[in-house]
């Protein structure tokens, strides 16, 4: 797809945040905090010329794959897929409704562009590894991107998959961790801290890149850097709830529906009006 310039990408990320708010209100609440922390990451992947995909042929054999292992950020994935042309924007506003294809967690086969049914944490990395392994076996050209949450890395299966990926040296896989330092209830540090997080992954055999997860151009540069000799992991330092002053770094906004007063602030901070744009 055509690579967009920085201003276009910033505009896209702003529009994604607005659509996420609209969808959250339609659904009566959703995982806004963890969606907002990954907006720039997905903007870079889908609109920064990183992921090779064709929304009109979503099952092309050699398409790149993006797997949202932190499936609770489904609202972000849907907003992105719709903007990328996989389905019409109007459908976003069926989010979590009775007969919608857009559920609280993404489901493969239901909606074009969704590559894996995720939601239970610690699944996406193994699944992505299988897809990348298949490419390596058959010398196929596609690349697999998988986004994990930092809290998700408390799941043991993540590390099982990490050992496997390093052992098989899966170079057609890029692991991204949305490192927003918060999990559902509190800061990771107050629950199960990750300690030397980057060092842990390096010790597992990954080439680790640390990047500002809200700097779209830096993200694109990292994603498109020449391949290394080890599987690649991008530790994206982010802020949970990024973009809304009262949501940033607040565990409360892991899952919540904004009230009327909060909506007014959101409209102001994202420079839009729910009334006119819905």
């Amino acid at each position, binding site marked *: 797809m055509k690579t967009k310039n920085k201003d276009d990408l910033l505009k896209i990320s702003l529009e994604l945040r607005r659509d996420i708010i609209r969808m959250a209100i339609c659904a009566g609440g959703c995982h806004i905090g963890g969606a907002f922390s990954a907006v720039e990451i997905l903007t870079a992947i889908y609109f920064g010329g990183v992921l090779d995909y064709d929304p009109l042929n979503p099952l092309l*054999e050699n398409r790149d794959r993006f797997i949202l292992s932190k499936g609770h950020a489904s609202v972000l994935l849907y907003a992105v897929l719709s903007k990328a042309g996989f389905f019409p924007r109007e459908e976003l506003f069926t989010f979590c409704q009775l007969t919608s294809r857009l559920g609280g967690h993404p*489901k*493969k*086969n239901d909606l074009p562009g969704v*590559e*894996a*049914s*995720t*939601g*239970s944490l*610690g*699944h996406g*990395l*193994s*699944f*992505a*590894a*299988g*897809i*990348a*392994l*298949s*490419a390596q*076996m058959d010398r196929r050209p596609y690349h697999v991107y998988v986004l994990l949450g930092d809290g998700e890395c408390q799941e*043991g*299966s993540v590390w*099982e*998959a990490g*050992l*496997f990926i390093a*052992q098989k040296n899966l170079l057609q896989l890029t692991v991204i961790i949305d490192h927003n330092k918060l999990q559902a209830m509190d800061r990771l540090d107050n629950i199960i801290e990750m300690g030397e997080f980057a060092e842990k992954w390096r010790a597992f055999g990954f080439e680790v890149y640390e990047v500002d997860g809200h700097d779209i151009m830096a993200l694109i540069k990292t994603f498109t850097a020449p391949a290394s000799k080890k599987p690649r992991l991008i530790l994206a330092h982010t802020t949970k709830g990024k973009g809304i002053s009262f949501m940033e770094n607040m565990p409360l906004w892991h899952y919540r529906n904004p009230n009327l007063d909060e909506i007014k602030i959101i409209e102001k901070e994202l420079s839009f009006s729910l009334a006119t744009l819905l």
Partner: protein
Amino acid sequence: MRNAYLSAIYDLANHNSNVLALISDNGAIVYDKFRKDFPLQFLNCGISEANMVGVAAGLASTGKIPFAYTISPFLSLRAFEFIRNDICIQQQNVKLVGTGAGFVYSALGPTHHATEDVSALRSLPEITLITPASPLEVKKAIIAAAEFLGPVYIRIGTNGEEEIYKHDYPFKIGRGEIINEGNDLAIITTGSIITEALSVARSLREKNIHVKIINIHTLKPIDNELLIDTAKKIKVIITLEEHSIHGGLGSAVAEVLLESGCTGMKFLRMGLDNTFCKGYGKHHELRSLNGLSANHILANIQRLLMN
């Protein structure tokens, strides 16, 4: 059964390069021939069953046909949620092969016994469950599973199981096989424990009591028609399984018969009743110790026929 599996997967891999053999460091030595001849189709995922199942699902999503093999409880129970989410919810074409059906790994103890795998997996939508009775049936089940598009779990024993089929037969997923004709009572069974039922049938024949033996090799979907037809004609029915009676074959048969209005029969489920397998020793010794030998079946039949 294990050799039958290895022979079947070898032939499949030979004919189709998309067929892959995955293991989680179990049975590595017995895979030597496969590894030597098809190194690119062999994958030892290490001791990490959940990851193996997730990787298998990912591979299947690209058109591969992975056969993920390891000891049944580690596969079906430890990796259960991966089977549920990555394979069943996503309808991925993965074949799961659980070894050590029932308590064939007798001396290894209950951690290694597969006595709840069927109950657990039978609750999952999308998956087909096959528990072959003999080496020939393992081979046929593996071939059928490879041809079938969708998740399949095949529960096999180890080596040393008797062959119960004297002739070749057409294996069809979902169809029960009548192994012995009889009208006085029926034993409905699954897996290699069928040999205990066959032994019972032989000894009762001398007393002019004729036992119908049905091999339900496919537990899901189960052969409703054959079960109902049997229950209409025969009024003493025993189910026999090397597994918990809670949620296994006995439960499945009871569900079918009761819901189809078949009543008025004497019905007994034989298997493990709210207990793990007791003891160590040899496989046949464990069947005796846990109330599942031919003698136990005979004693139950005697009681049922007298009352």
